[in-house]
C-alpha cells in the first residue's frame, strides 16, 4: 500500500501544484489529503471533461495540473483528450481509478474495467498502472511525457493501492 500523504508529497516534489477532479472511493484518501494541505487547492469538478478543460487552462496559465477521476468518466473525456489535449499539446497528469478490474466489482463498472486500457491505447493516451513498487519510475515517465512531449499521462490505480477514507 502507498499512503496518500506520501504520494501527494511525491507529486508536489515534482512540481505538480494544481489539483482537480471528480471523486472515486479508491481515491478518497488522496483527495482528503490535498483538501487538508493549506497552501494547495483542490477544485471539485462537476464532470470529468470539465476538469480536463480546467486543467488545460491551468497548465496554459503556468501550473502543473493533476486530474483525479474514476474510469467511469473516461468516456466523457475522450472528446476532450482527442480534440483538445492531444492536438494542442496540452499535458495533464490523470490519476484514474480502475474500477471493475478483473470483473470483480458492481455491474456498472465491469465493462469499463475491461476496456479502459484499450480505450486509452486507441486514443493514443499514454498510461501505466501505478503500484507501491513502481511509483518513482512511472512518475518519472509521466513527467518526461508531460514536459518533453507535452502530452497527457494516465496512472491507473487499482483498489487497495491507497488508504481509502470512505
Amino acid at each position, binding site marked *: 500500500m502507498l499512503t496518500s500523504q506520501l504520494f501527494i508529497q511525491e507529486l508536489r516534489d515534482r512540481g505538480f501544484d*494544481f489539483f482537480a477532479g471528480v471523486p472515486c472511493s479508491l481515491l478518497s484518501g488522496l483527495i482528503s489529503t490535498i483538501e487538508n494541505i493549506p497552501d494547495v487547492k483542490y*477544485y*471539485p*469538478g*462537476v*464532470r470529468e*471533461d*470539465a*476538469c*480536463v*478543460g*480546467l*486543467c*488545460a*487552462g*491551468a*497548465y*496554459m*496559465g*503556468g*501550473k502543473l*495540473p493533476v486530474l483525479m477521476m474514476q474510469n467511469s468518466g473516461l468516456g466523457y473525456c475522450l*472528446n*476532450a483528450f*482527442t*480534440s*483538445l489535449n492531444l*492536438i*494542442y*499539446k*496540452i499535458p495533464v497528469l490523470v490519476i484514474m481509478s480502475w474500477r471493475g478490474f478483473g470483473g470483480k466489482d458492481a455491474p456498472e463498472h465491469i465493462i469499463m474495467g475491461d476496456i479502459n486500457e484499450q480505450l486509452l491505447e486507441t486514443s493514443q493516451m499514454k498510461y501505466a498502472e501505478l503500484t507501491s513498487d513502481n511509483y518513482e519510475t512511472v512518475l518519472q515517465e509521466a513527467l518526461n511525457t508531460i514536459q518533453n512531449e507535452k502530452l497527457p499521462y494516465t496512472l491507473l490505480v487499482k483498489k487497495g493501492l491507497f488508504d481509502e477514507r470512505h
Partner: protein
Amino acid sequence: MNGTDVFNEILAHLKDEPVVHANGFIGRESFNVKDRKASFYMIGSMGLASSIGLGVALSQPDKKVIVMDGDGNVLMAMGTLAMIAAAAPKNLVHVVIDNEVYESTGKQRSLSSEVALEEVARATGYPRVAKVSTRDELNDAFKKFMNSEGPSFLLVKAKPEFDHGTGRVTHTPEEITDRFMEAVNR
C-alpha cells in the same frame, strides 16, 4: 448585432488580456476581426471554453481573463457555471454570444430561446450578470465588468448572420497553445 459586430466592440477594449474562445464560428469571427497572441482559439472540445478560461483565471489571478462563449457551448456544459461560481475568480469575465442556434452546423435551434442563460448564471452564484442586445449596452456592460470584481456573466443576444467569407484560423493548434502560453505567462 451579429458575431463579428460583437468582436468589433469587445476587442477594441482589450490590450493583452487572455481570451479563450469557444469552437464554431466564434473563434473564426474573432480571428478575422483581430488576431491576438493572447487569444486561444478552441476548435474542438465543445463546451470546454468556460472550464479552460476558469483554469487560466485561477492560475493568473492578476490578469483579467475573458471567455468568449456561445449558447450551445454553455448549454452543453451548464455544470461548469457552477464550477465558476464556486471557485469565484474575481478576474473572470464570461461573455456568451447567444444567437439561439447552432450556427456552424446549419442554424439548428438551441434551447436558449426558451431558457434564460443569464438567469441560470445568476442562480449558480455569479455576482454580476447582465443581458444586452445593442452595441451601446454591450460596451457599457463590458467596460463595467472589466473594471469590477467578478466572476461576471454577460449574455449578448446576437443575430445568426455569419459571413461565410470569414476564413478559418490559420494557426495550427500547437501554435495557438505556444503563443497563448507565451502571452499569458509573460
